[in-house]
Each structure stands twice: as C-alpha cells, then as structure tokens.
C-alpha cells in the first residue's frame, strides 16, 4: 500500500499509481469485499432505520403530541434536522457542478462520494417535512395537483417553495449523480458476474466507452453542471426563506439567504471530510484521496466558515441596531437565556474552532481535520436549533413565552435519520464505485512518462 510522505502533499494521486488498470482494481475491489466493519456498520444503520420507523409509527398512531413541541415553539428538532440535511446536501452539487465548471481538478477523487451524499442527504431531509406534519397523511396537499375542487396550494407560502426547491434539487442531483456514474457502472459491469453483472449492465445503459459516447457524455455532464449550479444557491436560499419570510424576531432578516447558503456549503464540506476520512482508511484509498484534497476542502470550509461567523456577528449587531425590544431580547436570550448552551455550541464549533484551519499543519493533518469536521457538523446542527427554537420561544408576547424540550420520540427520529442516511451511504459504497474511476484516470500522471523515468533509472 502506498504511503503519503511530506514531499507528496501536493499531488492529486499518489505517484506510485501509474496505470489505469490499477485504478480500476483498487476502486472496484471495494465493491467485492464487504469486510467485518462494513457489516457492523450496516447492522447498526439498519437497526437505526428500525428505530426511525418505530418512532415515526408511534407518532403517527398517537399523534404529533409525541414530540416535545408546544405553543409557541411549533417547530423543533424536526425542522432543525431538515435544514441540517438540506445543508449537508449542498456540497455534493457544489463540488461536482460548480467546481467542475471552474475546472478545479481536486474534485475528481471526492465528487462521487459527495454526490451520493447529496442524494441521500436530500432523501433524509425530505422525510422531515412529512414527519413534522400534524396530519402527515395529507402531505400531498402541498403539491399542485389538479383536482375537481380546484384547490391549489398557497403559492405565497415559503413552505410551498420548499416543496418545489427540494424536489427539484433531488431530481437534478439524482440525475447528475446517475449520469456521472455511467462510465464507472460500465467498469464495474466488466468486472462483475452473475446477478450483479445483470444489474450493472442495465444501469450502465450499454456504455462501451466509444469516442462518440464520451463526447455526448461530456456535453451532457457540462450542461447538467450548468443547470445544477443555480440550484446550489437557490435551494438553501428558499429554505432560509422559511424563516426570513416570517416575522418572528430572530428569523426576519435579509441576510438569511447568503448566510444559509454559506452555512450549507460549510456543513456539506465538513460532512464530506467526515465521511471520506474513514472511507479512505477502511478501503485503503490513501492513493487517491491525498492530503491535497483535504487541504482544498479545509480551505473551502475556512472560507464559508468565516462567512457564517460574520453572519452571526452581523445578526447580533443588527438586533442591537434595530433598537426594538423583541429583536434585541431574542438575541440577548440566545447568548444568556434558557438556550445559552446551544448558542455557545454554535459559536464555538462554527466560529472559533474552524479558525484553526488557517494553519497549514492543521489542514494537512487528516486526524485534526476529521475532528474539526465533526465539530462543524455538531455546530451546524445547533445553529439551526438555536435559530429555530430560541426565536420561537421568545417572541412578541412575553406572557406566551415558553421553552421546549425534545421528546424521546423526536430523539429516536433524529438518530434514526442519521442511520437512514448511513444505511444508504453504506449500500452505495458497496454497489457503486465511491471514487470516480474515469475521472481519476484523467489526473493520473501520464503512464509512459513514469515508465520512462523508471527505465532511465535502470
């Protein structure tokens, strides 16, 4: 196995990797050997999905009262987790679409995993609007379907925009993900046999790798990337408008769209780091996920993290500057009130800890990055919790103030949602090549050069 040394930090792949065949072998071997750890994780994830199903079932049967929600806190950890997962979903498209258009070559090794993460994160996020409904069985009323009573959704409601934004994002990111995987599916097909081969054959759409196919593929990919790019900005802007369009003090702020988009990319990249570190380790992908990749992702984290931190400070400033008591008191309460811990977790994890990424030594330490990325994930979840819960609990009418405590059912569903995500992600790394084989080959050093060098040495 190749090891990374100090001098190799700048490379996109390990210099030892020289042949295309080796790439195929290394990546496709992941699909063939499940390993003990995979089974343990998969078992845990499946159990977690069971917890999700049970908790949700309990809530459906007994009522949404199974949550800890109350009046005035009508939204709690469900919407928090919804926004969290939508945020996570951002980096995939960002890495595969925007960075593709900008020709950032370091994306090649990570984009497949990031895209898969996007699709599964949207699938997870999409559960929550259903779960949090008082009457989930009527959720389809939010869709504009023709009916004999001429009833339509209220197009002024940000929740309806949400429906469109999230479903569009899910559709586009799934297609993008699938399209990009076709050459790799074909590679997998060529190695596989039996039932797997049949499935890959079907999924690869008869890909043969001809010039003509590559030509069309490249064009399609480019166009889809161009189409997906605005979505990266739009989805989380729309999600932020769920809050910004309301008049709740602490929500009603024009800064929300850029603030949420930055936060989404921040959390999404952090999640990519969190996921790719163990994959790299478990499947021995050190050759393809080099320090250079992590360095680039850390820089992205740093930039977006600073934007987010700036947004926090501006929010506090604007609350003070507004001179209005409801606004000021919400922010005062965030810092020193009942939910101070949530706010401080958010500030420390998202504002202060990522400052360490200024240091190259930190950026080049995989272990440090892993730890920081976990902190960012935690911090970003609490950011949404802080925004949603502290604002609702201290609104305009002081006599109606109240606090909210998540119930066991909610905890079960939140934990279950992580398991649900893990469940799909674990399946993904066993079924699809988690690293884009075809694109990796583009960044390999030209094989003949390496051979020449070796020959010269002889």
């Amino acid at each position: 196995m190749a090891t990374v040394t100090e001098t190799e930090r700048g490379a996109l792949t390990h210099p030892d990797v020289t042949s295309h065949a080796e790439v195929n072998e290394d990546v496709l071997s992941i699909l063939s050997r499940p390993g003990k750890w995979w089974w343990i994780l998969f078992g845990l994830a499946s159990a977690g999905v069971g917890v999700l199903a049970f908790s949700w079932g309990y809530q459906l049967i007994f009522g949404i009262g199974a949550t800890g929600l109350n009046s005035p806190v009508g939204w709690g950890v469900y919407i928090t987790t919804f926004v969290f997962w939508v945020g996570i979903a951002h980096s995939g498209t960002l890495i595969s679409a925007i960075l593709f258009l900008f020709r950032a070559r370091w994306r090649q090794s990570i984009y497949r995993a990031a895209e898969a993460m996007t699709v599964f994160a949207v699938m997870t996020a999409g559960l929550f609007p259903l779960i949090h409904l008082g009457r989930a069985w009527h959720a389809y009323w939010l869709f504009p379907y023709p009916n004999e009573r001429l009833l339509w959704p209220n197009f002024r409601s940000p929740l309806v925009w949400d429906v469109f934004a999230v479903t569009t994002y899910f559709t586009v990111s799934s297609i993008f993900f699938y399209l990009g995987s076709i050459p790799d599916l074909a590679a997998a097909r060529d190695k596989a046999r039996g039932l797997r081969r049949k499935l890959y054959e079907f999924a690869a759409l008869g890909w043969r790798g001809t010039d003509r196919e590559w030509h069309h593929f490249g064009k399609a990919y480019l166009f889809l990337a161009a189409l997906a790019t605005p979505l990266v900005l739009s989805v989380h802007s729309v999600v932020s408008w769920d809050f910004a369009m309301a008049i709740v003090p602490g929500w009603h702020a024009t800064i929300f769209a850029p603030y949420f988009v930055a936060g989404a990319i921040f959390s999404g990249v952090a999640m990519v780091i969190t996921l790719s570190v163990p994959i790299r380790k478990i499947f021995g992908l050190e050759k393809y996920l080099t320090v250079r990749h992590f360095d680039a992702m850390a820089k992205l984290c740093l930039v977006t993290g600073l934007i987010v931190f700036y947004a926090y400070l501006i929010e506090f400033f604007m609350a003070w500057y507004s001179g209005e008591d409801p606004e000021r008191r919400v922010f005062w309460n965030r810092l020193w009130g009942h939910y101070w811990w949530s706010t401080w977790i958010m500030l420390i994890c998202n504002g202060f800890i990522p400052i360490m990424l200024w240091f190259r030594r930190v950026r080049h330490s995989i272990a440090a990055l892993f730890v920081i990325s976990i902190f960012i994930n935690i911090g970003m979840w609490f950011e949404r919790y802080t925004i949603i819960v502290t604002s609702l609990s201290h609104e305009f009418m002081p006599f109606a103030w109240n606090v909210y405590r998540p119930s066991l059912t909610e905890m079960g569903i939140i934990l279950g949602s992580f398991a649900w995500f893990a469940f799909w992600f674990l399946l993904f790394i066993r079924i699809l090549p988690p690293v884009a084989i075809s694109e990796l080959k583009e960044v390999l050093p030209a094989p003949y050069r390496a051979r020449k060098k070796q020959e010269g040495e002889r």
Partner: protein
Amino acid sequence: MSDGIKRRDFLKVAGTTGVGAGMFGCSTENVERLIPYVVPPDDITPGVATWYATVCGECPSQCGMWVRTREGRAVKVEGNPSHPVSQGALCSRGHSTLQGLYDPDRVSAPMQRQNGELVEIGWEEAENLLAERLGASGPANLLLHGRSGASLSRLMEELQEATGGRRVEYDALAQAPLREATRVAFGRDVVPTFDFEASRLTLSFGADFLETWLSPVEHARGFARSTGATEEGEKGRFVFLGSRLSLTGQNADEWVPIRPGSEAVVALAIAREISDAGGDAGPYQELLQGYDAASAAELAGIPAETLQALAADFAQQPSLAVGPGVAGQHRHATAANLAVLVLNAVAGNVGQTVHVGRPDRTASAAAFADTEDAIAAMQAGEIEVAVVHGANPVYSLPGTSAFAEAFANVPFKVAVTTQMDETARAADLVLPDRHPLEAWGDSSPRPGVYAVQQPVMQPVPHFDSRPWGDVVLSVARRLGHDLGEDTFHDYLRASWQEIHGRSDEAAAGFDAFWRGVLRRGLVEIAGEEEAEPSLQAPDRALTFEPPAFDGDEGDPVLLVHPSSRFGDGSLANRPWLQELPDPVSKIAWHSWLEVNSERATAMGIRNGDIVRVRSSHGEVELPVWTYPGIREDTVALAMGGGHEALGRWAEGRGVNPMRLLPSEAEQPSGGLVHLSTRVTVESTGRRRPLATIEGSSEQFDRPIAPAVQVDALTGEPQPEGDGERLHELQALGGFAPVPTDGLPEDYPLPGAQYGEYDPETTARWSMAIDLDKCTGCSACVTACQAENNIPWVGEDQVLMGRDLHWIRLERYYEGVDASEPGPVDIRFLPMLCQHCGNAPCEPVCPVYAAYHTPDGMNAQVYNRCVGTRYCANNCPYKVRVFNWYRFSEIPEPMNWQYNPDVTVRAEGVMEKCSFCVQRIRERENQATLEGRGLQTDEVVPACQQSCPAEAIVFGNIRDPDSRVAHLARNERTYRVLDVLINTQPAVNYLRKVTFHPVTEFHV
C-alpha cells in the same frame, strides 16, 4: 394518549411500521348508523336550538340562566339578561354547570352499603329503606343540607317538623359573621346587598367580591360600571386593604397592605376621622373615640397618613366599604364586619350603596356552631339516621372537626348527591340527586324577585336519579305524613300560587302566569323592599382588636381563601375549571402556596419547590408560587384541592387547606374561623413544575398593554388612528402600501385591490375590549370553551404549554409592592385571535387553511389544515393553538355537551378564535329568513355574552351606529403591536386608566 407505552400499544406500533407503508384514510370501523326520527317530537326541530330559562345552581348567588338545548340536550348556558341580579352575565363556574350535568362520575343509581361495599339497588327499595329507618329512628334523625332553593328548603323543613328530627344548614362559605354584624348594627338578621355601581370610592377590607363573595357576577357588573373610565374620562376609585391581593385586589387602584386581622381597627379609625369631620356615627360615637389613625396604622403596619387621606376621600363622595369576606373570617370576624358596616353608616352609605332593606336572601349565612352541635349529637350517639343533602362536610370541614368520625358513629347514614363525594363514600345509602338542570326548583335572591329553576332536558339517561323533592314527598308519605302534593313539581306550583297572588298578573289565571314565568325565568314584584334602618347601639360587647393567631409569632399567617374556580371545592371534578388558569396565579390543575416573592428569595425557595406547610392542626406538602401581591408575613392557600373522592378529575389533585385549620366557631356569629393560624414553611428539597400558562409577567418595552393616567384623558374622540406611525413603517419599505389613516375600518382586505369585495355592503367584524373594565375573571375563557367545543388537555399537557384555550387572559405586573401602601398596577389583557387585516398567519399557510373572509375575519379551515404549524409560529400574538392529540375524544356523556354547530377538531389541526362565526352565520341566516339585513349589534359572541364587566363589545365596524365603531374612535383605543409590525388587527383595546402616572412604551 397514554402515559407510558403498553405492550399492546407497542405491538400496534410495531405492527403498523412493520407493514411499512402507512395505510390511512377511509375506514368503515367507526361508522355509526344515523336513524331519523320515526315520529318526530313536537318541540324539537333538528338543527334549531330551544332555549330554557332557569336558575344557576352552582353557588348561592343563584344567577338567572338561559340554557341552549339542541335535539334535547343542553349544550350551552348563558346569563339571563332580564334577571335583575346577574343581568345576563355568567361566571366560569356557571358555565361549568354543564360539566356537572354530564359528569361521567355522577352517581349512577341508588346504592346501599352491603357487607362494607356500596351496591346498586332500585329506587323503590331505597325509598322504602329510608322511610323504614327514619320511621324507626323517630325524632333521633338529622338532616344536614346545603343552601337550596326556597321551596325545597321549606319542604325539608316540613319533613323535619313531621319527623321531629333536627335540621342543620351547612355551607362551607357561609357569611355568618356578616349576618350577625348586620343584626348588631341595624337590628335585622339579614345579609345586606352592596351596590358597587353607585360607589365612586370603594374600599374592600379583603373581601373578594369579584370572585366568590356573595354575588360576584352582580358585583363585577356594578364594579366595572363604577371604576371603568367613561367616555368623558370619569372613573371611580377602588382601594384594597388586605394582606393578599386576590383577583379583586389586583383590580384595585391602590393597595394598603394591612396586617391580617387589623381590618376592624383600620375601618374604625377611618370612621373616626370621618366622624370627627362631621360624620354622624350615631350610637357608635363614643366607641369611635377609642380608635385613632395613629394607633390603627401602627397595628396594621401602614402610615397613618394613608388612613387620613382615605377618610377624607371616603366621606366626600358616594362610597362603599366591604369586607372582610370569607377568607378573612378570623376570631373577631363579627366585630370586623360590624366595623365596616359602621364605617359605611358614618359615611352615609346605608341606603345609598349598602342596602339592608333589600337583603341578599340566597346568601348562605348558616352558623358553623349548628354543625358543631350536630357533630356533638352524632358523637354522643343521639342520632340514628343522618341525611346529608347538597353538602360535603367530610371534605370541606377542618380535619379537626371530627365530622367524619362522628358521622361514622351514626348507624344509618344517607347521602343525597349527584357526585360520589367524600361524604357519600362514608354513607350507608347513596341517593343520586338530579342535577339543577334536570330538576324543578326556585329561588328568591332579593325581595320581590322570584325565579324558577326548570328542567331543561330529560334526565341524562346514564344516571338513574330522582329529584330530592320527590324523594322527600314519597318518603314522607311512606312515613304517613302528607306534605300536600305527590311530586315536587306540584309542590312548587302550589307554593307559587301565593307569589302569583301578589304579582301584577294576579288577575290572570295561574297557568298563564306560570307559563310567563317559565318563559322569562322570573317574576318581579315591586314594593317588597323594606325601609333602610339606621344604626343601633350594639347589644353585645365585641372586641375589635386584631385576633390572636395560633403558632409562633415569627411564622407567616395562613390565609385560606375560597377558590374562584371551585368555590369550596364542590366543583373540582370539572375539567373546564381544573384547566382554567387561576385568575391570580395562572396555574391549572393543582394547588400552590402563595409566598411573597422577596420572602421566598430570602428563604431560598423558587417557583415549584415543594414545601411542607405545618400548623398545629395538620400539615400538607405542595409547590410554592412566588407572588409579589402578598404580604411577607402571610402565605395563602386556595380551597378546592385535595379531594379523596368526587371523580376522576378531582381526586388526588392539590391539597385541602382545611386540613391545616382548627375547627372553631367565631363568637358570637358561630361562623367557621378561617384566618386563625400561623404555619411553618420548610423546603422539602423536591420540586414540582407549576402547570402555568404564564411566560413572563413583564411586558418589557412593547406596545402590548399600555395605560393612561386619568388626568391625561381629554374626553375627546381620537381624531385619527395610528396612520402616521404606519405610514412611517411603510416608508421603510417591505410593506404593501396601505392607503389608510390607520383606522381599523379602512384597513384594506387582502384581495380588495382586485375588486373581490364590496366594502359598502359587506360587514367588517371587529371587537373592542375595554381593559379598564376587564377584571381578569376569566368567565370569557370558559364561555368560549363551552361554545366552541374546545377540549381540555390535562395537567401534563398544560405543563408542556399545550393548553387549547382560544382566549389567553394575560396578566402583567406593572407595579405591585407589598411593603407599603401605594398604587397597584396589574394589567389584564384578554388575548384572542386579532383577525388581522394584514395577518402574518395567512400567507405562510401552504394549503390555504388560514384565509381571510370577505367580512374581515381570519378563518381557519380545519379540514384543510395539514398541521405545519407555520401559522402559529408566525402569529405575533400567539393565539393559535394546536391539537397535539385527539383531545376531543372525551368520555360519554361528557361529549353530549358538544355544540353541534361547531366542528369537533381532529388531531393535528390548528385552531383559534373564530369570532364565534357560527353565531354570526346564525344571525345572518335568521335575518335572511325574515327578509331583512342584520341589525346593529345583533351578533353577540360567547365571550361578550358572558363578560360580567361588559368589557367586550363585538360588531360591524363599518356600521357607524355600532358600539364597536364608536369605541374604535375612543381616545384610549389602540391595537396591540400594530405600530410595531403593521398587523392591522380587528380587535381594538381600550387602555387601562390609572390614577398614578404611567410610562408610555416607546416605538
């Protein structure tokens, strides 16, 4: 909903989720078959309500009531506007009478104790048994009964005369000292009535006249008319002298926090000041010389100048002093009541605001001393048969009274009751009585006022009950005594022959008269009032000094007061009342100990800390609620909790404060002493969160409940609305342009720009609430709950903040100081859906469940709601409530009360105040049927109908003649938060008016 998850539930959940896909929607499981009337009854038209006039049986004030019945079921009670006492209003307890009627825990059949267990028997057997035992006992029998109607009382009297047994009247909240004081002062053995409306300066020496004292609904109306600011800017003043601000005290303009027990000396000192300034004290002139302001002030712990200033004001204008009330019945209570009556007499109030010649005839003034004698007789074995009717002495007497032990000593004990209460549990024979809404009866609250209580429906079939009057007649007949009639209905009619003879309608036949009385609910006969007497020399020596209290000097005095929700506790099994946040503490479902906030801080206890309260007579444990409105040397505990029987909603809730009191009769009135002991309060280290609806009682710097000083009132209408501020807001951008001067009738409706509605012909529903009149009594909350099928949610849900009331009676402290006399400023704000013209809830609903009607209401379409709760999040007033569970599934027959005109909401939908849209539509339909338009102020929502203070006015603001349009221009009118967030509410509030300077919020 269940507290824990049971095995069966687990399997249900696991099974459903195991199947995976949720299978929802149509189910044939719960379909009931609807069968039309084969032979329709003559007097029932499906879908049309029938109203009956009757009398409220929930407290001795016996207000007149109208009962709305639908398809033979009583669904709503309202005040009878032609009743001279209650004048159309009703309190929360009155509304809850329906829950007494449909209480599933009512006694279902006669029961006899056999081998230690109560088993059901038939009525024939039960009556035979009672007659047999009564016959065998001869005169060794006791009938202990509560306050009942005039004819029933007389019938019971006749029964006891026939059997030769004892008859004792017992009422836990009896006004015996007031009655004795009136006798001493004026030579009349009556309870006087008090006219709050005529008073310009009212002093209350602790009497909670807006809550439980005598006739609270009548008092509230008069009080609000007196102290509510008029359009000209006039306002009567109210000073509360007492150790704890009850709800009545919270309505005061000034609080003089006197030491408990010092009422008499304070009242006499004020009287002395007035008498020195020329007031006529009659035979009390000499007595008054012994009381001067300085020493009285010293005893009461207040400055003497306060008393002198009060005296000067009190003599100058029509005034009224009342007190000290049931909670203040201490060992010198007769003297204290006498002192207050003397004060009134010196100030010339007798005949003006105090009416001895028009006494309160229904007030219970029974002496506890009689009950004490009965207990002694039972203990001595002199009683063979004891019958208890309409009272629950085992619960409501002090634990040390030994009533329970004495009762157990009686060989045959009979309880006649609707509820299986503590006394019935101890009985050998339990006879289920009819609820007042199912039975005949009558009442005469004032001279010349005679009201009939008539059954408004067939008896609820779940309970095999019999009217007590019928049972008395039947048992008497079995004993060989003929009391005149076969049924109590005939007996009642017979006794009304005499009233008929005196009435104006004497010339017409009795049947026509009787039908008229049944329709109106009452008859008034002029000229039955007596002349007002003057002061008499006292015929016995009384001590006016503060009484002694049991316990150590340094410990706080325990003030046990009647609950404004449960009275003496007999109404505790009604979820509406249990869930109604107490008007003072805002706590529901359990008891609390009121401790002064500063004292609590010094003791190191916080809200919700469980303390052990111990007197020399008993001890209880309960959580603390810290309250700035109580003196540091006093702690307070409400009656009504701690039931061991009565029903599922009452049992085990709270504590019974009577367990801490001695069993002692005051001399000379014989009234039960309530304010008698000091207690020790120690922390147990445990906690119990308070089920309160109070978030913060401070309104910070927000335009929520502003006030205005009376001197700042001009008496001129408001020339314009908040136009300037709104225009300024709009200039900042982000708002839809509002071409309005900020007047509510001009607010453009959503869609108006598309020509959707015609502003000329469409009504625009609006409300005005006068915060200077609102007393915070919460009658509107229960009225709304009854009208609109609002379920209760239970203590655990209230604790989570999930109560479903459509009206939240907010209470903000602006100035409360228990350490010295000074202004009290406590603001009440009934917060309900504001039906905003620019409603934040409407645009955010993804499915149009929240939308604006053409007549200006913010409607909620329950069937369309999917439960995103976004509207509630975006509602700045926080008036939207959510059905977290299937709260509307309530036990049979409680669900008989549901109003068929209002949807019963399912789980998972949002709801809120609808401005009683069903009533608006009902009036509109009626107008259409009659071929006319709606009349001005024709529509009256449930809250307005009930409000004893007349604080709520509803109507069409586009109609220039309507009261609401008029009030919207009042100089005190404002709209909550409107200037901050431009919501353009349809509810106009009129500022509270204070006598002290107030700070204006800044915008």
